[in-house]
């Protein structure tokens, strides 16, 4: 491929080549496997909702939807930043991607801060892990996701360091794509969790 081929040409050229998934193929074992664990959690949550509709509806009414909405915006934005970063890296000539990854990290950090504030407000108001089954699921599912956010942010730090190198190898690009894929998973999971725990249900 020509060194000075444009992004559009590069994408067009790839379109004629063999189909390919972003990142490395084996990573999808982790991505899809993680989705299976979450799918089971969501099913168990839905089943429990059916069993105790009053408790769950009452618990849901006590959640602050603004936090959930802001968190959704933060993760969607950070996913967009990561996608911009990976596009910059793929361009010929390559553009600096590190600032995009830094912005994604800031959004991730804001998500963590917002979650800590939300948890603190809930705990101070007496709604804790052991209050009832709704709050058990609320804390367990969102905390499991928060662990994903923290791991994803650790990966973003390494992605940022990789993107700052003067030269990036094919392996580095593969790592950046894999890391971006994982961050999109973190975003996707939240987009499932937000409506399920905060919005859906008996009105």
């Amino acid at each position, binding site marked *: 491929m020509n060194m000075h081929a444009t992004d559009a040409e590069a994408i067009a050229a790839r379109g004629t080549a063999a189909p390919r998934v972003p990142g490395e193929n*084996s990573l999808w*074992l982790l991505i899809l*496997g993680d989705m299976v*664990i979450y799918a089971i959690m969501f099913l168990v949550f839905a089943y429990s909702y059916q069993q105790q509709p009053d408790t769950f509806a009452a618990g849901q009414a006590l959640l602050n939807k603004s936090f959930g909405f802001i968190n959704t915006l933060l993760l969607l934005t950070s996913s967009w930043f990561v996608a911009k970063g990976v596009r910059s890296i793929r361009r010929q000539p390559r553009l600096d991607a590190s600032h995009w990854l830094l912005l994604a990290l800031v959004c991730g950090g804001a998500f963590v801060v917002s979650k800590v504030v939300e948890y603190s407000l809930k705990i101070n108001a007496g709604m804790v892990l052991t209050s009832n089954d709704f709050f*058990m699921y609320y804390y367990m599912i969102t905390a499991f996701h928060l662990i994903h956010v923290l791991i994803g942010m650790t990966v973003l730090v390494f992605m940022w360091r990789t993107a700052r190198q003067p030269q990036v190898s094919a392996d580095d690009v593969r790592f950046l794509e894999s890391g971006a894929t994982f961050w999109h998973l973190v975003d996707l999971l939240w987009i499932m969790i937000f409506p399920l725990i905060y919005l859906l249900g008996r009105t």
Partner: protein
Amino acid sequence: MQRNITAQLICVHAALAMAVLMGVALLLAGWVPPPSPAMSALETAQMYTGGGNKIRFAALLMMLGATLFWPFAVAISIQMKRIEGPVSQPLAGVQMACATGTVMAIIIPSALWLVCAFRPERSAEVVQALNDLSWMFFIGAVPPALIQVLVVGLCALYRQGAEEVFPRWYGFFCLWTATGFVGGETVGFFHTGPFAWNGIFAFWMAAVFFFGWILVTWWVVMHAIRSPAAETSGAVSL
């Protein structure tokens, strides 16, 4: 160079014996799933007086099975040392050390089950406390196994040339296993439901991932031991 293939294979096959012994022990005691944490002190004491000898034999099999996890961990570490090279092998060492934690989280509850069955005349509250203690170890002591699978996955994924020993999908499989273990962390909070020690996440999911990880790792390590590349690479010292 002496590779001791037979001894390595004996170590890795210990994993199969471990899985069988632990499975048989749980079935023999009638603990699939484990006894409910919501049981009263009297019900707990009656479980031990009623099933005394079955529980005693189950505890013995469980201890033997747990001990066989050590040779298996040695076989894993030998392959990790091939990846890490001859100079220093920190990840292989962490894996081995954490394996000891995993083993103790099985041997200690086994001894507690023997204690519970040892004196049927003991007061029910004491039996209940010992029973609680045993399950807090058996299901709740997740971190050693968690760090163990994470460090194996890390070794398979980030080291140059690791593909010669462990396939990359195995590295991601280890990370996935670690996420599957997390459900057991909160057994101290719940007497009922999916996160209690007999629940779908704390017991069923953790058990499937634990035994699944052992079987997949057995297969991967066995192939690594037999691979021709093992002839030329590897750590000089153990």
